[in-house]
């Protein structure tokens, strides 16, 4: 049951909690229970830490042939997001058009539906990334109060 596996990863998928080795300071996302540098001496000592509230686009691809369940979102952007401290995360960039995405663009995590186990199954929620709001409206008369 995929829902249970997903449930075990809520810290990671919902809140982007990483782990940090208290000895060398390396941060891991997805979390690791052992530091690859300090090895045995880090066992049982890894600390849960949140990632910084924003990152930048390191590189990206525009997906035109989407995975099952993503058909309604094509074309969509999958990007490598770099966070301060060296952690890089792959995720979908939403709330902007593919042509709006640039390398170096600032993004922040947003909580979204990621997939679902069919119409009667569990809904999987998790992080995606979005740029800060930028006031854009093609038709200003529709966005103005008057």
């Amino acid at each position: 049951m995929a829902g249970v596996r997903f449930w075990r990863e809520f810290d990671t998928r919902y809140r982007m909690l990483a782990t940090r080795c208290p000895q060398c300071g390396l941060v891991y996302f997805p979390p690791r229970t052992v530091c690859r540098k300090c090895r045995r001496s880090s066992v049982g000592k890894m600390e849960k830490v949140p990632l910084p509230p924003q990152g930048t686009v390191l590189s990206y691809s525009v997906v035109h042939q989407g995975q099952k369940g993503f058909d309604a979102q094509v074309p969509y952007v999958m990007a490598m997001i770099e966070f301060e401290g060296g952690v890089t995360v792959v995720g979908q960039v939403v709330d902007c058009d593919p042509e709006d995405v640039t390398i170096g663009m600032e993004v922040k995590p947003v909580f979204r539906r990621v997939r679902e186990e069919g119409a009667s199954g569990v809904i999987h929620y998790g992080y995606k990334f979005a740029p800060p709001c930028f006031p854009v409206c093609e038709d200003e008369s529709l966005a103005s109060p008057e």
Partner: protein
Amino acid sequence: MDVGILSYGIWIPRHRIATEEIARVWGKDGASMAAGLGVKSKSVPTVDEDVVTMSVEAAEMALRRCHFDRVDVGAIYVGSESHPYAVKPSATIVAEAIGATPDMTAADFEFACKAGTAAIQTCMGLVKSEMIKGGFAIGSDTSQGAPGDALEYSASAGAGAFLISSGPGIIARIDHTLSFTTDTPDFWRREGQRYPSHGGRFTGVPAYFKHVVTCGKKMMEAQGTTAEDYDQVVVHQPNGKFPLKAAKSLGFPKEKVETGLLTPRIGNTYSGAVPLGLAAILDKAGPGDRVLVVSYGSGAGSDAFDITVTDAITDYHREGDDLVETRIAFSKFIDYATYAKYRGKILMGDGA
């Protein structure tokens, strides 16, 4: 003990569809539909947005703007008529996502468009009785209207989250709340039905206006106030016309309604409507400003709140992405076909 709003957050999806675009598809006169409803456009959630995602974003914004430990959130109530699960609470997912679990209580509320304000009243009671330090009352909806139905021109999506607490840090004190409730069959959705049904013109005078105006008047009688004592008013806004008429019946000029009247641009966000309208007012309010709030939920009932903004609003973060007006301006208009795809109105094959 003063109880009130310690912080608040909002979420409005980026996509919009113009009333004229919906009217074009159904062979109606778009200009007269927009004028008749007082709705120029409405917000549209994408396929990865729902009541839970919007609630989480709104609650996260509220937490970012104040100093309140997540583990001290003692209650989360999500009011909505479009919860993604029929059985399984939205509130537990929100609680987990914002890091408030497990020493807290959570539940989903449903009362058409006023479930969010019912949640505010519940949180007030828990805070005032010192059962919790603070609790989230969230109004959030991705409402649906049947294709071609009058509701389709206004039913939209949005969320507002209010962190209710006590103490000197609250930015708005809730001086009083009361409700007016009857059994009125003006709007409903039976179990298993995809779209709601409504009583057409019956939704007006015997339903919306009776409850909103009576509840507003009862609040002013209880508080010994008139419209002149309030700087702003926000009432439920199923369209752009009803709230102006209801407010006028309560003695309020148009100028005191406009700041919190968002439906003309983002449609009726149902449980999110009054919370978002109140957020728009708080975005611009100053210390001492007094606000009358009257929600409405079909079925039917109204909750009224007499709110006074405190000095703490002066240092409260109110700029950039956090503002209602910023999120309204952050918009992209889509055509009806894209809207139909996003809202799951297209019958798909087995491979999808």
